């Protein structure tokens, strides 16, 4: 049996009225990867934040290696060799990767009193004054050798504070070749990364690598990864898993938070399931299956299949021709993009984060000026008469029925105002509809109630600031509002990012409903399994270029993965 690395006993945490964790018991063993599974708002991240010292538990005990500990701050967590890799990386953008790894490193202990004791124990035992017999007479003389030794010993003790100061200063000064030394460590572990690069020049998976090296460099024995695969390509995920397995075999305890059941099955030895802040069960991965886990997670049976209907009455709704965008940094973010979005079908867009998905959707919504190309919208209200969107303002485009529900990385950046309540956020789309100068508050209020009810948004009431809701609930509010406006084109970017299975399926069903209503749905997603199951066609973007528009019914995940990294592959082949 493996040793217990960390054990939680009846740990609870509440935020105001919301109970995030209620008497959770959890055991993590060394040489083991534990998956922490649960829906949104089930308290996974809160629980892990308590281990890593971000939050302090309201009640309960934490034991490490069998001894009860108090983790008050991230610094304490360090001392107990706990390292957490957060969902949003904790890296300083303007520092090099090496500096980020070094940040917060402590000098090795140098105790003056202990050193003094050691030095004093070497004091000579001979007496300073010794008797010398000479010519039969005994005379007393001072033994200068012993005196010198004693004096030297005390001098050494007196010098200790200065030695410590000197060591402190020496440690404080950053070595010029610090990146090189760290690089050797990284190479030894088999990480492919240039540590001299600045963080803002790194890709998402490279940033994650930096985080992992950082945690390893600090000597962490307990590793926590919060949704590490959310932003990685299938190939990158495989690499990460290989690293995690190597660390597990190295004797480390690893906790990984993820929503993706196939990953849970692939990587973990045990699975702990949380539901609504409570620990439901911990099971061996080998003795369970995806269905059983899902049931434990949501507490009721869920149909895991997405019903994909055959598209009907397809009309070319949106035609994008030769679209190119050059951004402020003079980088071509979109390069000759051509595609057609048809009514009654879902067009998926796949690609590594930052491949131009955002710019593509924003240019259709009129938020970004494009340098060349055309976007033609065939207006169903006027018998599919083509309209050029280039000359329209965002408001005009909205009125045509083109709706963008963009879920940016921080969820609240675009679309919702964090400090406003749900009703006010609904009004962001309808504030022009009031009577004269006065606002119409009734219909948004009704809409808010509907969304809270239909999409099962967990909130005390509709007058709660959006900022206080959990991530998944925020997204439900955002997508719900956009769908409520009965669009003809619905663009949803990462609408299920960070959502649990139950809420994700609510969103997929919403999108499917829209498709059946004859809406042209454009879905930017990151989970390839979902893209393949949900969409009718998938457009793959890679570094601003369309590397393929494929039929979702007949493509595999690996093929899409290759298309997503096409240019990189061809470049490597060219070398």
């Amino acid at each position: 049996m493996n040793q217990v690395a960390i054990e939680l006993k009846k740990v609870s945490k509440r935020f105001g009225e919301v109970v995030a964790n209620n008497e959770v018991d959890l055991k993590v063993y060394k040489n083991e990867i534990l998956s922490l599974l649960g829906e949104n708002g089930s308290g996974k991240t809160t629980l892990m934040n308590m281990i890593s010292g971000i939050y302090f538990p309201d009640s309960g005990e934490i034991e490490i290696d069998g001894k009860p500990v108090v983790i008050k701050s991230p610094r304490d967590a360090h001392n107990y060799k706990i390292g957490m890799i957060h969902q949003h990386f904790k890296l300083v953008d303007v520092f090099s990767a090496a500096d980020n790894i070094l940040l917060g490193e402590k000098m090795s202990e140098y105790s003056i009193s202990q050193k003094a004791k050691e030095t004093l124990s070497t004091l000579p035992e001979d007496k300073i004054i010794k008797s010398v017999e000479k010519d039969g007479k005994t005379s007393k003389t001072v033994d200068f050798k012993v005196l010198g030794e004693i004096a030297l010993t005390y001098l050494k003790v007196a010098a200790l504070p200065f030695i410590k100061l000197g060591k402190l200063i020496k440690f404080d000064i950053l070595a010029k070749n610090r990146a090189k030394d760290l690089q050797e460590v990284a190479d030894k572990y088999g990480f492919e990364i240039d540590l001299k690069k600045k963080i803002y020049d790194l890709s998402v998976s490279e940033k994650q690598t930096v985080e992992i090296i950082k945690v390893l460099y600090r000597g962490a024995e307990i590793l926590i990864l919060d949704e590490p695969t959310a932003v990685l390509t299938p190939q990158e995920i495989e690499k990460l898993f290989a690293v995690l397995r190597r660390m597990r075999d190295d004797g480390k305890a690893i906790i990984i938070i993820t929503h993706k059941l196939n990953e849970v099955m692939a990587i973990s030895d045990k699975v702990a399931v949380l539901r609504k802040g409570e620990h439901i069960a911990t099971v061996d991965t080998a003795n369970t299956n995806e269905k059983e886990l899902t049931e434990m997670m949501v507490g009721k049976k869920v149909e895991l299949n997405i019903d994909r209907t055959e598209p009907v009455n397809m009309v070319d709704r949106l035609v994008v021709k030769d679209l190119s965008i050059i951004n402020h940094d003079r980088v071509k973010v979109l390069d000759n993009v051509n595609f057609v979005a048809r009514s009654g079908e879902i067009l998926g867009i796949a690609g590594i984060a930052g491949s131009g998905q955002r710019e593509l959707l924003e240019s259709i919504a009129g938020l970004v000026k494009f340098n060349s190309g055309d976007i033609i919208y065939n207006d169903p209200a006027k018998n599919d008469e083509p309209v050029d969107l280039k000359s329209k303002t965002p408001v005009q485009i909205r009125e045509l029925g083109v709706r963008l529900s963009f879920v940016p990385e921080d969820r609240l950046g675009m679309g919702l105002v964090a400090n406003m309540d749900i009703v006010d956020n609904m009004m962001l789309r309808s504030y022009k509809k009031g009577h004269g100068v006065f606002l119409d508050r009734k219909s948004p209020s009704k809409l808010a109630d509907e969304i809270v009810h239909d999409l099962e948004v967990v909130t005390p009431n509709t007058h709660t600031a959006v900022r206080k809701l959990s991530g998944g609930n925020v997204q439900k509010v955002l997508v719900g509002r956009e769908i409520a406006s009965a669009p003809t084109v619905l663009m949803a970017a990462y609408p299920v990012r960070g959502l649990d299975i139950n809420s994700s399926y609510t969103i997929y069903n919403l999108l499917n409903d829209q498709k059946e209503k004859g809406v042209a749905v454009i879905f930017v997603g990151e989970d390839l399994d979902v893209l393949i199951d949900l969409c009718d066609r998938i457009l793959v973007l890679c570094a601003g270029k369309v590397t393929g528009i494929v039929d979702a019914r007949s493509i595999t995940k690996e093929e899409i993965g290759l298309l997503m990294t096409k240019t990189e592959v061809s470049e490597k082949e060219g070398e």
Partner: protein
Amino acid sequence: MFASILTSAIRFSTIFTLGSTGETLTEKSGNLNLGIPGIMCAGAIGGIIGENVYIQSLSSISQMTAFGAIVTPLIFSMIFSGFLGAFYCLLTVTLKCNQNVTGLAITTFGAGLLSLLGNRIDKTGFAQASLYFTDGMDFASKLGGFGQVVFSHGFMVYFAIIVAIIVAVIIKRTRTGLSLQAVGENPATADAAGLSVTNYKYAATVIGSMIAGFGGVFYIFDYLGGSIEYTIEAYGWLAIAIVIFSVWKPNLGIFSSLIFGFLYILPYYTQVNFAQMELIKMVPYAVTILVLIVTSIMNRKESQPPAALGLTYFREER
């Protein structure tokens, strides 16, 4: 003619060097301390009170020593400006108040304190005490024009330059500096790395305030020779502009301060009419705006302000 302008520009720039170095140190920790003009005023009044206390303690002015006349006002100034810096931190870091509002309040308070107490304090012996501040190095006159420009100043001019260089080296080359920058760039990251965000903010702000406070002492005892003027607040605002101008680098701050100092005193050495003089006085501010435009067009990550500048950090925020 040019040499004499340069000499006084170097001398005058000291107040900017001290002010901007202090403010840079503070801003590197993510505290946008708009209280720096007030803190410089507080440093000045601290110096005045300190000198007054020292002179009162002597039985006659002739007993004055260089050590006492210099050290007492400097210590008092450190207490005054350090206290205001700590107060700023108490409000913005511990109590999480808005940084801008707090800073402006402290500026108003500091400037008010200077005009309230400045004239009421007995300044007998100040002129003599200030001689200790203004004394240049003996060999300056032997080196001709060059010596005059570079070595004829009081010790605080060199002190300011050395402090700016030390601060620059600490920020760029030490772990302490790296941690400080991490606190200013991304406090959550620094926190997760086990650094105490609160301690770094307090230390940087208090030390930065003390450095800036020395600017006030310099102005009163060196530049004005022991008399008093209420323009320190204006120099404080310029010091904040210099922080931006020198893209948060204290070593560049020395030269930026020199340029600002030069432009500031230039009108007094030129035979121009009132309108032209006012126009020349505007140049430093116009240059600051220009630098802001240029740095934002260049969009280099390194020449941007600390990313978390002006934001309060609360660990459990969700």
